[in-house]
């Protein structure tokens, strides 16, 4: 694996941005890896976006700052606009329900309609964040195992276990089918 993987998840309050980061970091801990997660909250919660900066590494982590994310997962317009320029080598995953992609960017961008998928497949928007987790787990399969992330979902979200397991499976299988392929709106 790469020594250091950086993931930035950002959206507005209530989308489960912190939970997504927590689940990935929890999976990293149970896999014997090092991890850090910084959460921006307080005024920023009210001001438009919440941000989880997750770093996973097989070595001790010095800087916990995500400066060059391997994956930017943007779940709101404010989040997308604020952090899109950080990405140079990684992939931007955005929810087209909220975001119009910036076609001038020279990075891989993947539309991932988590909210719509949640409504369509599970009947409720609240499962969107676990679908995102499943999708990211698929993309991170070189770093974290599917089982480790699935277990972390159960550990961090004790409620709705069967629904969340289904949401996770939906997200994961989408990563397998379209994650690696250039299903990119812009390039």
């Amino acid at each position, binding site marked *: 694996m790469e020594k250091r993987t950086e993931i930035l998840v950002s959206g507005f309050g209530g989308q489960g941005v912190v939970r997504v980061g927590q689940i990935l970091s929890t999976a990293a801990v149970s896999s014997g890896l090092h*991890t850090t997660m910084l959460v921006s*909250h307080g005024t920023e919660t009210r001001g438009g976006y919440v941000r989880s900066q997750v770093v996973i590494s097989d070595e001790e982590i010095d800087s916990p*700052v995500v400066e060059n994310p391997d994956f930017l997962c943007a779940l709101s317009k404010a989040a997308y606009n604020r952090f899109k320029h950080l990405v140079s080598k990684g992939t931007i995953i955005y929810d087209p329900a909220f975001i119009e992609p910036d076609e001038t960017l020279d990075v891989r961008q993947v539309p991932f309609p988590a909210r719509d998928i949640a409504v369509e497949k599970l009947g409720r928007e609240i499962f969107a964040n676990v679908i995102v987790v499943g999708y990211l787990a698929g993309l991170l399969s070189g770093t974290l195992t599917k089982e480790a992330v699935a277990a972390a979902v159960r550990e961090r979200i004790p409620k709705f276990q069967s629904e969340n397991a289904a949401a996770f499976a939906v997200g994961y299988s989408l990563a397998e089918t379209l994650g690696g392929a250039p299903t990119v709106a812009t390039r």
Partner: protein
Amino acid sequence: MKRVLETGNAAITEGAIAAGCRVFAGYPITPATEIAENMSRRLPQVGGYYLQAEDELAAMHIAVGSSLGGLKAMTATSGPGFILYADPYGWALGSEIPVVVVNAQRVGPVSGITGAPGQGEFYFSRYPTQGGNFETIVLAPASVQEALNLTVEAFYLAERFRMPVTLLADQLVTDGWESLSVPETPDDVAAMGLRVLPRRIHSGPEFYPASDEIDVPPVVLGHNTGAACSDWTPTEQGYDTEEVEAQHKHAYRLIYKVRNHRDLLRRYEAYYLDDNPEVVLVSYGSPARVAKSAVKRARERGLKVGGIRLIGLWPFPEELFTLPAKYLSVELNNDGQLVREVQRAVPKGSAVHFFGKCGELPTVAELQRMIDALLSGEPLPANRWEWEAW
């Protein structure tokens, strides 16, 4: 021992419990509230008491009062509460009562932004109360694991030195999540290299020795030892007095019990200093981790750059600064606090510079630009605090 994903707030809680803390007194304040909440859940499970106070003045007084009654105690706050600790902090210093104080620094000026990190109480933690004539012990964790380890160590030092010890954290350390090893038994604590000293009770009628001795048990009331302790200038027996000679003895003790045992308090991480680097980054707390990444990145590029991360802030380890170099102090404030102490400590032929950021961490890229400019002798990147730059 268990390995979990946790915040620094939880780490401090578990560290305190492992150290034998059985009273936490606090007043809610972002970003230290979570320590209080964790304590309210965890302490009763181990037979300890969570006492919520009417304000921070009361919070620290309750903690010190509990310690005076024989229970190890802690309180936690952020800047706006830390200033209110001035009163009980002085009382604990003068009466030589062990207690642990956590300050999860947030960004100022004054009350600032509740949920953003800062490092504005570097000097305040050195002089947290009135009157001078004392030294303080201040430790600064840079990670969640270190927050646990240093909390245990803070209790250990508080007992040995008979005084308050401050854990000067920042919001990123307290609110940040990281992998954490939590000791679950005394064997775990020992295996992690952590030291715990049980509370001992001062049995003599004399209140303090007029010397720099440490390892003197603190006064504990309720054992009919005839103890007397107060915030006034005491005689060696503890009686209040207006005699200047007694003041000399008391002040000597409070200053030199710390100064003469600096070797027990020197804690730091120095890296890449062996080949006389041209540039040395100095920092503490969470920005020190970005500084370390920047130094490593510079070394990958073949640049002679080193770093010092301070863990023990006070007494300030000036003896570390023997190398003439270009020093860069990296801090979470815009006025420059640590930099002044570095300026005082560096040898002749050194230059000292400052990089401040507030509300969020600096980036490795930003520090790289500073390092490059320092090495090439070019002007440093524009002072971002000039009004026009906004």
